[in-house]
């Protein structure tokens, strides 16, 4: 061997490398680089908690300070993954508690977290600082109380859209009087009322508090008193804004907001009455992020608010904003980078909201920095998509949900192939794409060919045949996550491109035509893929050619998982064994 870099020198060099992708590359160079890298990695990210075993991760990165894990497939957000599917945090917490006592930060997404997990975290990591749970479930407010009570240096406690068993608001009083380290608190998803005096005291003794997101149970009066105690806030999630308007209350609210000179992000605003919006005018010029997606406010009031937000970069709003409102956004919010427009009445077929494709076209034309879009709309046109692609080639994330399945271009009756072709071709930096509307196999030919940087692709009610999947799996060089529902194909393309699946994190297919026979073949062919079938009935009781309800395929070095419920069947590599769900009974 030639010259060798002393490990201290290498360590020093590596301390400048934060990106995990780069660190992964570093660890492949040679054994000593692997060793040095693993001992110095502080932030560990595991995109699929079943891709690798907790013990292996804990062993490899003993110096871990921050762990981020993701569990269930993304479509779990839309109730496509039955309860009990998996994604348990416990094995990870247990393994880290044993091997990585210096762990300070845990971020979990779509995982099942129990009170036991939370208690274990509180008990095991002496310097625990950050807990962020996104779309998690399985715990109660007792678990939160344990964290609050025990973690003396807790800085961040955020519960984002979790399903929590709410046993009351007492958990808040468990923060000891000595705790002064809080920087961010988000309990917006809890239902129960917390004692406002406890909250006031907590806020008063937390000089570093920058982000506070309240739950709807906090009243306007409560909000005012909290704002008075924390004028340094940069992020605020209000409580409910629905109280009856009294002139005195209004002026107090106005005043409280005008004292928050550093406020950059505003959210919450549940059921906000339009009469209250003027109280926010003073903070508008400084806002970079505004989440109005729970505010049932009509277009004129929205425009009155938004025209004051000249620095706005991120806007989440409901379709109540209408095309006209988006036209206003396009002219006033020139810094806009991210736009999300949610449907106000997703279950109502006859809701007549004047939001069409034109709204998005306005914003695409007017907001030069626009790079991320999520747009729900009843129907769309190719022409609009072409304009959007032409005007905004810098788009990184484009998620269009045409609410009507199979809806063609409503002006020409053609499929939306041409439109999505333009998006794929024109937006060369596109990382995430969701398609909808009437789409033929051709659309996917274009996407496969041109969407070279797309990492995540979501498809529903589209395509004609296996060609669709064939195009995607033979193209899309950067594809990591593919999720498909209700598309009429499966087997042929899947088997043909089995090798591609190992280059991806996961593939989800539901209500498609993937047969049990194909699943078996795939599993036997690809030893490092877990092929899981989610089906009410054991797949073996039906003919091999009959389609299975849902499949979830992911690459893993951990082998089949041991915690599958009754309705999840892991296809064995050994054809003789067939199918089982290896559940520990």
């Amino acid at each position, binding site marked *: 061997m030639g010259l060798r870099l002393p490990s201290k020198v290498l360590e020093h060099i590596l301390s400048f490398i934060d990106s995990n992708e780069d660190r992964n590359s570093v660890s492949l160079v040679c054994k000593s680089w692997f060793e040095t890298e693993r001992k110095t990695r502080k932030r560990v990210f595991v995109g699929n908690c079943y891709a690798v075993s907790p013990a292996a991760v804990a062993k490899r990165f003993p110096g871990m300070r921050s762990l981020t894990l993701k569990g269930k497939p993304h*479509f779990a*957000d*839309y*109730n*496509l993954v039955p309860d009990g599917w998996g994604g348990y945090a416990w094995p990870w917490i247990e393994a880290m508690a044993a091997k990585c006592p210096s762990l300070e930060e845990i971020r979990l997404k779509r995982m099942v977290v129990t009170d036991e997990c939370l208690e274990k975290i509180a008990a095991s990591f002496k310097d625990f600082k950050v807990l962020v749970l996104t779309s998690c479930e399985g715990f109660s407010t007792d678990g939160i109380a344990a964290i609050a009570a025990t973690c003396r240096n807790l800085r961040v406690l955020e519960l984002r*859209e979790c399903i929590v068993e709410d046993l009351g608001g007492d958990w808040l009083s468990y923060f000891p009087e000595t705790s002064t380290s809080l920087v961010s608190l988000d309990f917006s*998803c809890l239902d129960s009322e917390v004692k406002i005096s406890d909250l006031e005291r907590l806020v008063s003794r937390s000089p570093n508090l920058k982000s506070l997101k309240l739950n709807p149970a906090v009243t306007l009066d409560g909000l005012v008193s909290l704002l008075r105690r924390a004028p340094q806030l940069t992020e605020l999630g209000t409580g409910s804004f629905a109280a009856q308007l009294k002139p005195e209350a209004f002026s107090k609210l106005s005043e409280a907001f005008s004292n928050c000179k550093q406020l950059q992000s505003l959210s919450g605003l549940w059921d906000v009455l339009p009469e209250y919006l003027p109280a926010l005018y003073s903070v508008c010029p400084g806002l970079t992020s505004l989440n109005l*997606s*729970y505010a*049932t406010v009509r277009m004129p009031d929205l425009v009155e608010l938004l025209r004051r937000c000249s620095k706005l970069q991120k806007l989440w709003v*409901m379709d*109540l904003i209408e095309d006209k409102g988006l036209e206003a956004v396009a002219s006033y919010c020139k810094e806009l980078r991210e736009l999300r427009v*949610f*449907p*106000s*009445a*997703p*279950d*109502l*077929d*006859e*809701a007549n909201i004047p939001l069409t494709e034109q709204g998005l076209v306005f914003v695409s034309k007017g907001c030069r920095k626009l790079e991320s879009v999520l747009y*729900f709309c009843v*129907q769309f046109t190719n022409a609009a998509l072409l304009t959007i692609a032409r005007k905004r080639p810098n788009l990184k994330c484009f998620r269009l*949900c045409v*609410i*009507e*399945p*199979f*809806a*063609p271009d*409503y002006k020409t*009756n*053609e*499929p939306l192939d041409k439109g999505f072709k333009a998006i794929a071709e024109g937006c060369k930096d596109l990382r995430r794409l969701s398609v909808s509307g*009437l789409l*033929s196999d051709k659309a996917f030919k274009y996407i496969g060919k041109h969407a070279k940087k797309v990492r995540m692709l*979501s498809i*529903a*009610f589209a395509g*004609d*045949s*296996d*060609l669709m999947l064939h195009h995607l799996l033979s193209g899309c060089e950067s594809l990591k996550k593919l999720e498909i*529902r*209700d*598309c*009429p*194909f*499966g*087997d*042929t393309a899947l088997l043909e491109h089995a090798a591609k699946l190992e280059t991806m994190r996961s593939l989800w297919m539901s*209500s498609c*035509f993937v*047969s049990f*026979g194909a699943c078996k073949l795939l599993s036997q062919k690809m030893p490092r893929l877990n092929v899981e079938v989610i089906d009410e009935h054991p797949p073996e009781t039906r003919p091999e*050619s*009959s*389609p299975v*309800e849902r499949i979830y395929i992911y690459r893993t070095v951990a082998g089949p998982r041991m915690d599958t419920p009754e309705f999840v069947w892991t296809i064995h590599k050994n054809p003789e064994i067939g199918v089982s769900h290896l559940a520990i009974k």
Partner: protein
Amino acid sequence: MGGLRLRVPLLSPCLFLAFHAPDNTSLSSFNPNFDAPLYIYISLPISLNSSTKLTKNKNNKNKNKNNSNKEHKKHTQEGNTKIDIDQKAMAYEKVNELNLKDTELCLGLPGRTEEIKEEQEVSCVKSNNKRQFEETREEEESTPPTKTQIVGWPPVRSSRKNNNSVSYVKVSMDGAPYLRKIDLKTYKNYPELLKALENMFKVTIGEYCEREGYKGSGFVPTYEDKDGDWMLVGDVPWDMFSSSCKRLRIMKGSDAPALDSSL
């Protein structure tokens, strides 16, 4: 390419279009035989399978209702599927190749034949739901099987769906020919709501009185609450009413049962 050539009397363009699916390229292979000016020769186009797959659009109210262009599609539940792997191989067949099915002559438009149905299952719905996409539902009030019945669609988190944000409720009035819909959130109190109803149906409802309801007007506004019970409008505070009201019915005084009989 191959194909069945039909000798067909030259009729209106509709017949011509009937055998033409949107991206069918067989039209370019159409070869008029000028020796027989009274007839045209039509090559039967792409297999009926793929042609019916192209336009899956169901019930799109904006779609041109030209029947000759519409196609039927029957969707059945998963339990019925008898998917044949061979038939899936057809997906790779070139558009103009025919299989035996195509040589069968049949009356009517492509896609109507019952034999086709087993080949085009697209299970759009969780098992147990049968769905039919048919072209004939025109009226607004009929309830076609739509997105409200599809699991997980549109892809919006439950926390957003439970939003009783835009609370449109149906309003019926005894004797009126059709129902109306109003958004309760646009009203802040009972007087506003009652005024709007009076304007909408051109009636006078009168004022609410705790003891006797709406006296003298002949019309009684009632509503169905979350529990399915029919209640008199006005008894509970406005907020409570607007969040629990599922639909409204303005009853004619003579039909409304006596309100104070139980008191």
